[in-house]
């Protein structure tokens, strides 16, 4: 197994774990954590391909990861603000109980 394949396998497993968590857990914050894990799996992929790819000096994957981190920060901020707003409104952050559009 080459190092690249090892990285990709780790990232695939990380993605699967994050996905399983996001799909199976009830709590909204845990879904968010799962999404963060999936994003990180993608970032790991990008870094691995930058490192072992043909043109590392172009820094494409590297910069992509930086931007993706900034996006993750924005996403987390907005997501958590939404969760808090929903909690304030419905007194729950359990996703099964937040399925009605009627407020």
């Amino acid at each position, binding site marked *: 197994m080459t190092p690249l394949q090892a990285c990709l*396998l780790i990232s695939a497993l990380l993605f699967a774990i994050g996905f399983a968590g996001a799909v*199976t857990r009830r709590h909204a914050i845990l879904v*968010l954590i799962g999404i963060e*894990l999936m994003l*990180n799996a993608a970032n790991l992929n990008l*870094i691995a391909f930058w490192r072992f*790819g043909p043109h*590392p000096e172009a820094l494409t994957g590297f910069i992509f990861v930086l931007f993706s*981190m900034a996006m993750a920060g924005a996403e987390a901020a907005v997501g958590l603000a939404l969760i*808090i707003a929903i909690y304030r409104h419905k007194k729950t952050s359990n996703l099964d109980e937040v399925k009605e559009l009627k407020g």
Partner: protein
Amino acid sequence: MPPFFIITGIVTLLGAAFAMSLRNLVHCALAMAVAFSGIAALYLQLDAQFVGFAEILVYVGAIAILIVFAILLTRSGEAPEKSVLTSGWMAGIAVSAMVFTMLGWAVLNSSAIPKETPPAPVATVKNVGDALMTKFVLPLEIIGLVLTAAMIGAVIIALKEDSQKSKSEDGGQQ
């Protein structure tokens, strides 16, 4: 394959698995911080130090803390008595297992994977800065805009409804 790489990978995956499976949400958040630290260590071993430290700064220093705050603000610090899983969790696990098998199969059998390891690239802060200020200057600006928008949006969403509105709501309830 250096052993340290494998250890970090295992720590990362264990952290992620615990983050997704523990009952207590605060434990989940802390396990997530472990997973992120592991990913940062992986980045360091892939010669991407800048990204590694940015990962710790952003994920462990900011997002983990943010999530912990959200957990405490939504009063979910205690482990729930009810089931923590959704009704269709079996299907979810099955789908994610399928995703992993497919990805793993593709990774192991792909012909596009280069066989030899290239020498470590240099990604000094200066190079990154130059790239950000020349080639990627437009994405950088857009990211700045997105972050500002996200910040304002988050503040507006999380802000309490103004007192007049809540007063009328109270009146309505009575």
